[in-house]
C-alpha cells in the first residue's frame, strides 16, 4: 500500500439513499464527499459516499445499511462488508 490517507467508501443502491446518507452525515458533522463509484468496485454510473477511515464507525451508525463498504488507499480497494 502507498502512503495516501485511508478513506472509506460507502456504496448505496440508489441516488436517493446516497442523498439521505449525505444529509445524515452532515447533520452529524462527519465530513463526507460524494464521489463517482469506482469501476473496480461497482459498475454503478452514479456516486458513492467517501468518508475518512477513522470516521467510518461513526458514519455507519448514522446512515441506512450500505450495500457494501470499502477501504481505499491510492486506488487499492478492500471490501470490509
Amino acid at each position, binding site marked *: 500500500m502507498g502512503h495516501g490517507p485511508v478513506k472509506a467508501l460507502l456504496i448505496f*443502491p*440508489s*441516488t*436517493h*439513499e*446516497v*442523498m*439521505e446518507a*449525505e*444529509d445524515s452525515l452532515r447533520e452529524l458533522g462527519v465530513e463526507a464527499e*460524494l*464521489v*463517482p463509484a469506482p469501476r473496480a468496485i461497482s*459498475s*454503478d*454510473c*452514479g*456516486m458513492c459516499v467517501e468518508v475518512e477511515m477513522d470516521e467510518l464507525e461513526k458514519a455507519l451508525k448514522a446512515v441506512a445499511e450500505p450495500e457494501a463498504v470499502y477501504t481505499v488507499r491510492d486506488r487499492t480497494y478492500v471490501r470490509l462488508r
Partner: protein
Amino acid sequence: MIYFDNAASSYPKPAEVVEAVRRALEEFPANPGRSAHELSVRAARAINAARRKAAGLIGSPEPSRVSFTRNATEAVNVVLYGLLRRGDGCLVSAFEHNAVMRPLRHLERERGVKVVVAPPGKGSPIDLDFVAREADGARMLACALCSNVTGAIFPAAELAEICRRRGTYFLLDAAQGLGVLDVNVGEICVDALAGTGHKGLLGPQGVGFLYLRDPESVEPLVRGGTGSRSESEEQPPFSPDRFEAGTLATPAICGLGAGVDAVLARGLTNIREHEEKLCERLLERLAAVPGIVLYGPKDPGRMLPVLSFNVEGLAPDELARGLFSKGVACRVGLHCAPAAHRTLGTHPAGTVRFSLGPSNTFEEIDEAVSIAAELAKGR
C-alpha cells in the same frame, strides 16, 4: 381578471415557486443522480429535498416510498396497471375523474377487470355500506379525496378502514384536496396515494407524485435508465428508482417542493378555514341568483370551494362565454369526469364550475356572482 379555475390549475403561483424553478434551471440544470460532479449532485440534492417535503406533507414514514411522476394521472395509471390482474374487481365512486375511469375501462377490456361503481350515500358522495358489502370481492378501491366537479370531500379515513379490514387495496386519488386537507397515510391506511404539484400545492405543471406503502408489490409502468444498477438490464426493484426511469423534471420538482413549503408556511388549517369561508360566501351569493341550479353537497364543511352550477334556460357554454368575456376565468363542460356528471344528471351538457383557491377573496366572489346574475337576467 378573477381566477376561479384553481381545480384545473392553481393561480397565482407563489414567488418562492417561481424562484425555485428559476434556480433549478439556472444554477443546476444537470442530470440528477447520473454523476458525482457538482451540478449533478446539486440537482440530486434538490430532488431529494423535494421528495422529503412531499413525503412529510402526506405523513409517509419513509421518503423513498414517494416517487415523482408527470402528474397525478400517471401516478394513478402506475397503480391500476401495476396491480390489477385478469379478473380482479375494482370498486370506484360514482364521481371518479377520467384519470381513473379511462385506464379502468381499458383494463376492463384488456384484462377482464370488473369495475363496480359505488353509488352516493345519504349525505355522502359514496355509500359506505355498499363499499363494505362489495369490498370483499374487490382487489382494489380507487377513490378521489375530493370530487373535481362538486368539491365533495370523500370519507377517506372510513374508506381506508373498510379496506384495511377487508384486505382491499386502497388507492386514493388526491389530485383535489392536497394542500388544503390534512391527509396522513401513516394514520389512515392508504396503500397508494396519487398527488399533483400544480393544484393545491401551488407548484408548476408537469410533476406529480405517487406514494406506495409497499412499492415492490406494484409493477412499474415505464422502465429505463435510473443512474443506479447500470450493469443490469432489469429495472431496479427498489423505490423510488423502480418508478423513476428517465431523466426527472428537476425544475418542476423543485417548484413542487417550494409549493409544499409555501402551503405549510400558510398552514393547512388556515387555508382550509379561509376556503370554508369562501365556500360559504360563494354558496350564499350564488343561491340568491334567480334561475340558478347548484350541484353537490352545498355545505362548506363537507366540500372544497369547488362548485358546479347552471342557470335555467341558459346553456352552460353560453353562460361560460359570458363569464370569460367579463374576465371570470372558470371552466365549463364535463371537467374530464363524465361519470360525475351522469351521477348529477348533468351529462352531456355539463356545468359551469367555479373553483377557488387560497388567494381568492370575498370581493372577487361578489363581483363574479353579480356578473353571473346579470347573464342570468339576460337569458
